């Protein structure tokens, strides 16, 4: 049996080889796509195997490579935390690679596939290396590999100005974040007390004795950097720009997996490097998580571009994960290891769940885009009749993300609620009082997400077709795309029905990071019953809910169909007026109107109605024009002023540039004098 680290190494190596070899197959396009994506799926599966093994036995393996700079070798390490993220990346990599075989072929002869294929494999390899890296140098190399590869993937359809702008914004924010992470490593290495060329390893950082001030500096620099990658509000603005314009398989990976590498980073810094921290760190993480969750879902509700809407939901779900992490940090700061373990498991479980259902939803959005060539939901409708596979699979994603039992989103949100309700055991009176309010915000988030996905599924798949092109031209997507979505939806269901197994498997992570375990209580009453703290405290049984619903529905159906009753198909009841047209349906904007009205003060909403009088009868309205513009307030609050300031500074500096050689000589002369004065 090969060691887990070897399998992970094989996975990365295979992906890198694919990136190099892909151009060789260029002449045979179909072979190139099928071969590379199938092998990428194999590599991803290898990563899953390595991760599952590591987490299951809680082993730690590390290795120093001969690669790297002289005297600064790269280090690899595979511990349960890294193993868990290998599983997240590998699982989605597997589904999306299968899906990509069909999806990428859909681009037809429009453009070169090689670019997409190379960067796709590099992107996967980069993400795997981020979680495997065991020194700051290698980590940043991998981090940049991931960022650069995804930048080129966002840029894939680079003839559109929108795409170039989105990719630039993404690159900019990713690099501001990377800079902060670099500084955080600098602080850690500088304070580690080891010789300069030794302090860059993660081992040195684990043993570093930091003063509270430096520890806070390191953590918050890193948190800022990772938050920029994860899209935590207010650093989220690149997400709704970059995700919609990237090809859908890439959006699925970026949203489902890439954002999770920052969750990995935050866990690594807080629980592995620093370990001892005051509770207010967790408080800040918790508050930012709550803001991201609520604002993310509210912005999502206001969108009518399907992929942009899903991108805002990633902001929301990252918020939910951070809520779990924040609670875990608060509990850990007060030395309550079991409770910290519960909150950490909730966060990690949601990480896995979000990867699966958001990947599924983006793949579904890709299938819709593939079939209709449309991202605007106002131009869709009734696709359930034209896409009999995609519709139910997408519905599984919708139900999962809306946190409804028996699917997976519910389990992790339920665990987060349980963590919230344990806050009375904190010894701090103010926290006892304030933390339950967070539970109310989480409930609000869940309910709004359900509203949003009723809107998405209702407008896209139900009702009547609203688009301009012929409805008959829309066809179901091919087998490989269906297979990718089917596998992801089966995972959604299994992760929802068998949470005890997943938690039992995950248990080595909190054991190593916060010294607490869940398995003794969580699986005490067998695999059917999830009891995170104690049986009397709270319990949930996924299998029972699933079987119960299935059984009662089946019995009711059978009883009612025992006697033959007829059903007639008739035209829609139109109240006796003219026949209904698809334009009379509720649209996406109309659906979210009540919420826009109630919570509109949170957005910059501009609504205009213009009535053009009838030409023959001026007292009657002829045509109506309705304009609605909703802007992200953070854009105006944070980014526009910064952009303006940068522009202003550039203009002022630009005044130095006179274009005359005498002036430049004068500059050199003055500089020389100043330097001499200082040196003297």
């Amino acid at each position, binding site marked *: 049996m090969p060691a887990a680290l070897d399998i992970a190494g094989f996975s990365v190596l295979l992906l890198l080889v694919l990136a190099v070899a892909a151009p060789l197959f260029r002449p045979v396009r179909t072979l190139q796509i099928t071969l590379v994506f199938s092998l990428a799926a194999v590599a991803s599966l290898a990563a899953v195997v390595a991760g599952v093994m590591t987490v299951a036995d809680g082993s730690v393996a590390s290795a120093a490579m001969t690669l790297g700079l002289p005297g600064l070798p790269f280090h690899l390490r595979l511990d349960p935390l890294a193993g868990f993220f290998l599983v997240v990346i590998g699982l989605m990599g597997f589904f999306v690679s299968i899906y990509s075989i069909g999806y990428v072929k859909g681009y037809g002869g429009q453009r070169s596939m090689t670019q997409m294929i190379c960067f796709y494999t590099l992107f996967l390899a980069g993400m795997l290396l981020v979680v495997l890296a065991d020194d700051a140098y290698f980590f940043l190399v991998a981090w940049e590999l991931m960022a650069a590869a995804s930048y080129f993937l966002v840029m894939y359809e680079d003839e559109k100005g929108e795409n170039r702008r989105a990719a630039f914004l993404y690159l900019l924010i990713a690099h501001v974040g990377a800079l902060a992470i670099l500084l955080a490593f600098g602080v850690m290495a500088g304070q580690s007390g080891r010789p300069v060329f030794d302090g860059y390893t993660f081992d040195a950082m684990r043993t570093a004795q930091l003063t509270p001030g430096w520890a806070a500096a390191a953590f918050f620099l890193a948190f800022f950097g990772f938050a920029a990658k994860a899209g935590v509000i207010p650093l989220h603005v690149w997400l709704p720009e970059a995700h919609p314009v990237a090809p859908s398989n890439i959006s699925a990976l970026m949203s489902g997996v890439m954002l999770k590498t920052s969750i990995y980073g935050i866990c690594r810094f807080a629980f592995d490097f620093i370990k001892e921290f005051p509770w207010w760190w967790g408080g800040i993480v918790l508050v930012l998580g709550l803001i991201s969750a609520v604002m993310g879902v509210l912005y999502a509700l206001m969108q009518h571009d399907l992929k942009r809407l899903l991108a805002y939901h990633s902001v929301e779900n990252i918020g939910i994960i951070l809520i779990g992490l924040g609670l875990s940090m608060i509990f850990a700061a007060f030395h309550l290891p079991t409770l910290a373990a519960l909150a950490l498991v909730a966060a990690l479980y949601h990480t896995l769940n979000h990867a699966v259902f958001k990947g599924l939803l983006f793949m579904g959005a890709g299938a819709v885009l593939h079939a209709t060539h449309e991202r605007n939901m106002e131009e869709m*409708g*009734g696709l*359930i*009749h034209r896409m009999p596979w995609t519709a139910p699979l997408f519905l599984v994603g919708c139900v999962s993300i*809306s*946190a*409804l*039992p028996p699917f997976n989103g*519910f389990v992790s949100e*339920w665990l987060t609620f*349980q963590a919230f*309700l344990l806050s*009375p055991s904190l010894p701090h*009176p103010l926290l006892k*009082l304030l933390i*339950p*309010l967070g*539970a*109310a*915000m989480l*409930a*609000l988030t*869940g*309910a709004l997400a*359900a*509203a949003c996905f*009723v*809107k998405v599924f*209702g407008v896209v798949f*139900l*009702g*009547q077709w609203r688009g301009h092109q012929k409805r008959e031209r829309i066809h179901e997507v091919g087998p490989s795309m269906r297979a990718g979505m089917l596998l992801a939806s089966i995972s959604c269901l299994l992760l929802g029905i068998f949470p005890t197994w997943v938690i039992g498997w995950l248990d080595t992570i909190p054991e190593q990071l916060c010294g607490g375990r869940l398995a003794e209580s969580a699986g005490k009453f067998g695999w059917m019953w999830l009891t995170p703290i104690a049986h*009397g405290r709270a*319990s*949930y*049984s996924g299998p*029972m*809910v699933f079987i*119960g*619903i299935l059984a*009662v*529905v089946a019995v*009711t159906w059978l009883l*009612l169909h025992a006697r033959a*009753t*007829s*059903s007639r*198909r*008739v*035209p*829609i*009841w139109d109240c006796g007026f003219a026949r*209904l047209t698809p334009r*009379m*349906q*509720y649209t996406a904007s109309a*659906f979210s109107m*009540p*919420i826009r009205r*109630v919570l509109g003060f949170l957005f910059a909403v501009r609504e205009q109605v213009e009535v053009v009088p009838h030409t023959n009868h001026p007292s009657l309205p002829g045509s109506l024009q309705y304009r609605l513009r909703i802007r992200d307030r953070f854009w105006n609050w944070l980014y526009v002023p910064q952009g303006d300031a940068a522009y202003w500074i550039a203009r002022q500096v630009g005044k130095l540039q006179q274009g005359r050689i005498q002036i430049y000589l004068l500059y050199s002369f003055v500089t020389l004098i100043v330097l001499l004065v200082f040196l003297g």
Partner: protein
Amino acid sequence: MSLHPFVIELLQFALLLGLAPAFAGWVKVLKCRVQGRTAPGILQPYRDIRRLFGKDIVLAENASWLFRFTPYLTFGVTAIAAGIIPLISVDLPLSATADVIALVMLFGIVRFFTALAGMDIGTAFGGMGSSREMTIASLAEPAMLMAIFTVSLASNSTSLTQMVSVMAHSEFVIRPSLAFALAAFILIALAETGRIPVDNPATHLELTMIHEAMILEYSGRHLALIEWAGMMKLTLFFALGIAAFCPWGIATGGDTGLLLLALVALAAKLVVGACIMVLIETGLAKLRIFRLPEFLGSAFLLATLGMIAFFILE
């Protein structure tokens, strides 16, 4: 004589399935009496359901499988909830299946699919109903969970049987936290079950209906299942309120005498609860939809006050 827990479980299912229409009928009779109208009789809902089951189904041309599946799901999930809330005894084997948070989410499934079914045909009414229902639900859900959390903090559990046992064995004192939570719960229950002042179950007036707008296209046995599930949901919300706030009288084991006593206590509480709801419904007018955030906001505020009162006073 003592009954096996599984027998009690089955008894509960039968009770709820069988008696929910009677309870809905009782509410209707009371309402008619209070408003000076002639009442149709307490058994009218049974007759309605039987009539609907006998009828053929009329489906719109473009109704999808989701539209036809939703009534069964609605009925099934509501029936599952009946096995989870302790009505007459806390000794329920299925009660551990879902705690109170999962229970709220079970009602969430029903709402999610009903709202989707409302959008399936593609009429304006269906979309209107779905949009309004989801808006109200998203404002009501935080308040609902806050009210329930207050009770679960007091009983240190979110498991319903545990909450009921703790509450039933505590001595009767008026706890301010629970009083606030109960007030919030009543407001939320009115919203969740679609009663005045949030929604009017008796109206089919285009501009005011919410829940009825979503199910406007249903007929025959589909409609019968949805109506029946609606009656069960109404009864279950009363049962949830009773279980969380005044469970006194509920049996702890399977003793037949105690079970009978519990049944009588439950019936009495339901009768009184219905009277309170009818008085509220008769005394208030339906609110404009954009006044509802204030209504639900005050429910949230009450629930939060309850929680603060719990931490400060207890």
